[in-house]
């Protein structure tokens, strides 16, 4: 952006939010915590002989699934703080006084929250390369991880932003976001039997998180081509677009008091 031209509001907000996230320490701290978790998982699947019961492709699949899930968690944590955090810290009014449309403020903040996802993915790349070398799965893992992770990050970031717009406090926003996230994860913990049959299949495909995670497994573990199970990406894609649209529409109702009339 040229130094002599004024930038659009969302771009200005994004720049400031990126500084807050990455220079303020929250982004590096969350990414570091993620890297510790990923290191522990990678260590267990790669070196512990008692627990190392996974095939190499399965190990890569597990790492990508963990990365996609954790990336979503990092994004939702940042997005859930976006508006309610400003409200709690007493800084929202000064922001609302700027002549920037509220949707642009929300878009800048959502984009900044989403920046945690590529950072998490970058952290995961060495693990993917190390565990996947020699079986020709690294390229697929990068493509699938980036595709599924980006959809889930957008979907969860938008969800966090919507909750942040209407939550009474930052704690409520964060707690609700993580609660919804856990609810989306819950079906992955069901027994294999419960996940089979038409009801199980419908639940798997309708839930964007389980559908995305299963797509990763089908491609990386079962060795399917990228296009063969593309129908599993319908729910993540629809959810990402729909929730992002809802977040941008709802942000027009960004208020000093949550849910209040302007």
């Amino acid at each position: 952006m040229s130094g002599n031209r004024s930038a659009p509001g969302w771009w200005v907000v994004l720049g400031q939010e990126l500084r807050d996230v990455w220079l303020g320490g929250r982004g590096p701290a969350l990414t570091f915590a993620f890297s510790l978790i990923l290191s522990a998982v990678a260590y267990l699947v790669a070196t512990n002989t008692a627990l190392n019961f996974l095939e190499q492709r399965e190990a890569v699949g597990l790492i990508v699934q963990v990365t996609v899930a954790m990336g979503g968690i990092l994004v939702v944590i940042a997005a859930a703080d976006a508006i309610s955090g400003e409200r709690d810290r007493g800084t929202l009014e000064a922001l609302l006084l700027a002549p920037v449309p509220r949707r642009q403020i929300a878009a800048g903040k959502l984009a900044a929250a989403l920046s945690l996802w590529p950072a998490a993915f970058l952290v995961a790349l060495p693990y993917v390369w190390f565990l996947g070398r020699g079986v020709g799965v690294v390229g697929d893992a990068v493509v699938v991880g980036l595709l599924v992770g980006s959809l889930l990050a957008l979907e969860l970031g938008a969800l966090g932003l919507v909750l942040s717009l209407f939550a009474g406090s930052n704690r409520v926003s964060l707690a609700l976001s993580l609660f919804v996230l856990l609810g989306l994860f819950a079906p992955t913990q069901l027994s294999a039997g419960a996940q089979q049959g038409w009801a199980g299949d419908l639940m798997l495909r309708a839930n964007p998180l389980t559908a995305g995670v299963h797509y990763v497994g089908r491609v990386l573990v079962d060795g399917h081509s990228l296009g063969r199970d593309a129908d599993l990406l319908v729910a993540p894609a629809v959810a990402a677009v729909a929730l992002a649209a809802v977040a941008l529409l709802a942000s027009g109702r960004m208020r000093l008091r949550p849910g209040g009339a302007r």
Partner: protein
Amino acid sequence: MAAAVVAEHVGRDYGAVCAVSDLSFEVEPGDVVGVLGRNGAGKTTSIRVLTTIVAPTRGRFAVAGVPHTRPDEIRRRIGVLPEGGGYPARQTGEEHLVYHARLHGASRAAARAAAAALLEEFGLADRARTPLHAYSLGMRRRLGIARALVNGPAVVFLDEPTLGLDPAGRRVVLDHVRAVAAGRGAAVLLSTHLLDDVEACCTRVLILHRGRTVAAGTVSEVVARAAAPRSAVVRVAPVDARRAVAILAAAPGVGAAGEALDRPGEVRVDLAADPAAALRALLDAGIAPLGLTVEGARLSDAFLEMTGAA
């Protein structure tokens, strides 16, 4: 020249609660208007309505000639120091001003130049790179006023800018408020509980009570309108003091009179009207008043009387 702010019967309800019922006034460019009111009188809500943070439930207003139906346009022409301030702890003073200047549409270079000039003007240039959590309250308030000026506003709204400051800090902030109006020609609306601040730097005053404008005008107009002298001390020769008490107590326009115990010759009277009739009664009785001090003709009395707290 168009009025800086015109409000006509503006009201704001929150559900069943009426926060502002009837706000009507006019402010000219260069005026410093003190907005006074007791807790809950509607000062902050009024400022939030006028600064487009909340929409009016009824009535209409225009700021810098822009009607309230165009809030984005109004926000381009105003500067605001909100009640809570809104200072992100991790930003530096310079970063904060540059950010807000850019939100108002300045280019990066112009925003940096504006921030540097404002930091210099408000005595914060040496703390430009200090995070805001390390700023004192007075420094934050000065930065808040500087932030309100990043866009060269026509109208500046300051909500309790001196609250919690020591006398020196208050004086510095009030000096800046005067300079904003005098040097930049901006109208300033200063919401405060501190009547001394209003007397010190405001050209006009607006008193709100239960969400309604109960007085608007220059400080002296408001004082003259509402605060009739409330008490006086009449000095007479000590030998005449007891007789003077009796005469004054019976004089028209005097509520009560009594001898000051520790000051021989001083008679304190409660006035319900002009003290001239009381003085005439003394003279008619052959008592020469040696002095008269009328108390109570201050903004605080007007405020207390108009807000029902007297």
